[in-house]
């Protein structure tokens, strides 16, 4: 029995599991986007989606032993940071105009 567990412990993880995890996280991100009612939470779901994609990039970088995959992740992180900054600034501006963060109440283009 111990050897079974030991054997189990020594097993490698197929990369498809990582990719599957990435897909599931991505889907959860979309679901969050769809059902959440707070603007900030919606934004957080987007960040979740970005992270899921990052995971798949790293996985493939490991698969092909290519550094470029990781560099892409690096750039994605940078852009996500910039985007988060600007997006949150916009959310603040919207809040100032509308005094609400409910997604369904913010339905006019005109501020």
């Amino acid at each position, binding site marked *: 029995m111990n050897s079974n567990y030991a054997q189990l412990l020594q097993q490698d993880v197929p990369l498809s599991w990582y990719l599957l995890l990435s897909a599931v996280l991505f889907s959860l991100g979309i679901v969050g986007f769809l059902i959440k009612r707070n603007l900030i939470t919606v934004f957080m779901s987007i960040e979740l989606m970005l992270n899921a994609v990052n995971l798949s990039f790293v996985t493939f970088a490991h698969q092909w032993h290519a550094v470029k995959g990781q560099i892409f992740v690096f750039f994605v992180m940078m852009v996500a940071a910039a985007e988060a900054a600007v997006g949150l600034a916009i959310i603040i501006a919207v809040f100032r105009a509308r005094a609400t963060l409910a997604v369904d109440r913010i339905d006019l*283009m005109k501020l």
Partner: protein
Amino acid sequence: MNGSLHLWLIPLLPFAGFLLNGILGRKLPKALVTAIALLAPLGAFGVVLNAASSIYMHFVPPGPGYGNISLPHVENHGTWINAGLFHADFSFVLDQLSLVMLLIITGVGLLIHIYSVGYMEHEDGYWRYFAYLNLFLFFMTVLVLAGNALLMFVGWEGVGLASYLLIGFWFRKTSAVDAGKKAFIVNRIGDFGFLIGMFLLLANFGTLTFSDIAATLTANPAWTGGVLTATALCLFVGATGKSAQLPLYVWLPDAMEGPTPVSALIHAATMVTAGVYMIARTHFLFDRSPYALGVVAVIGAATALFAATIGLVQTDIKRVLAYSTVSQLGYMFLGCGVAAYSAAIFHLMTHAFFKALLFLAAGSVIHGMGGEQDMRKMGGLRERMPVTFWTMTIAVLAIAGFFPFAGFFSKDAILYAAFAQGGTSRVLWFVGLVTALLTSFYMFRLWYLTFMGESRNHDVHPHESPWSMTGPLVILAVLSACGGWIGSGRFGEFLSPAVGTKTAEAGSGSLELILSIVAVLVAAVGWYIADQIYRAKPERAASLATSFAGPYNLLAHKYYVDEIYGLVIVKPVLALSRFFLEWVVDVAILGGLAWLLGGIALLCGAILQRWQSGNLRSYAAWLAFGAAALLLFVLLPWTSLLAGVGIHVGMVTHQ
């Protein structure tokens, strides 16, 4: 060498005159307008004379370039239509027939142009009148010169257009405008027949060129009747419209609303003769169909009699002449109907001379009487307007058919041909004879009422017309006197290459002599009756009118033909088209269409509007949906999936 006769100049000069006067005429001084307007027919006449001399000058020792041109002379100016098996060119053909017609058109046309200078001098639309007149000359020459039926149809329609423009010249006068419309519409009905005839020609011969059709018919001597009859009858319908025969004559009397020189040129000498010309031009077709020829002859004779009866009681001087024209045209068709084409053309020529003279003289009378056209208010003009009087007398003698004036020879030729053909044609001869009596009667009636006796009108002081008007009268009088002396035999010989040799035969001397004497006697009887009623005892006219009130009213109202047409044809068509256009097209179709389109747009908009909700989550949902769809589309193996279901999609292989 077969040199060019420059036939294209003949239509082109009048057309240039039309363009110049039409576009610039309003601004040009009257003298310049006159000059342009007169140069056009003068130039055309000159070209025609040059052509004639080039052909016939071999009687004189030929100079360079003369005498080597043979007829028919064809000038081809390029292909017009080349579609499949159908081919039509801009080809002008000069043969004896078109040469005669051209001489009449340009010669008499020139005289009438000169006359118009005096007659229309005080008109505002002086430039417009001459522009239209030149336009008419252009189209008429195209009609006569055309080598195929399509080009002839262009001229045919064009003269109808010019006629409409000129009848309605005084466009502020409702009656003139209505008359113009009537002329054009009735002509159109005839043109429909012409078109059907052309379609039949095309279907059976594959071409519209006259020489080709004639050649095909000569090559098939056994081909008669049947479809050829139908074609000939359809073409004849077109001729009835243009040449004012039964039942489409109704426009010609109304066309007198136009200026008198117009009546002279278009509705006496040239346009109305286009139908006769057309039949002579397509004689090879009619020769193959005795039935069609019979129809032509019967309608011609019937029209001659019919119109003559109406002319007996008309009081407007121009109306009498109009009905007289219809009647004389009937004679020409009678001539065509007995296959005596050259006799018909001969009568066409002499008729052009004396009818143009009659109209111009009547115009001179109207001009001198200050616009009065009612003969009951005229009288005693013999001393006041001597030149007009004497020229008109010659014309009246000519039309009545007295020897040795022009009408005698030509009318005689037709009557002899009708008699000589025997059988039912003898009946037609008799009808023609009765018509000659009536013609003589009403023409002398006109003569007596207008010129003789005492003046019945004391408000106007008539004066003789200026030389620009009386000059052409004199020339035409000379022509009316001498125009027939060439004789129908020689004339027939001249025309025979173009219209067939039937009337080249000289009549058997004694029969022809007897018939001519009978005709002259009949004309003299007509003169005598007119003399008795209108000169000897003038009050007899009124008493006769009251005693025969029934027939008199019938004739005075022109057999109520216009009213019948109005009731049976015009009103129903008008009502039907009004209903159709207003309710069916405008309300139902167009309105319905607009409503439908608007409705569709609104509906689509209403549906699509719900998509633009502003709801962020729905937008996100649709985004996800789109992404999923794209992914599915790209990743799924559609061909094998569809093949599994049974739909086999062919893949395009990329080379």
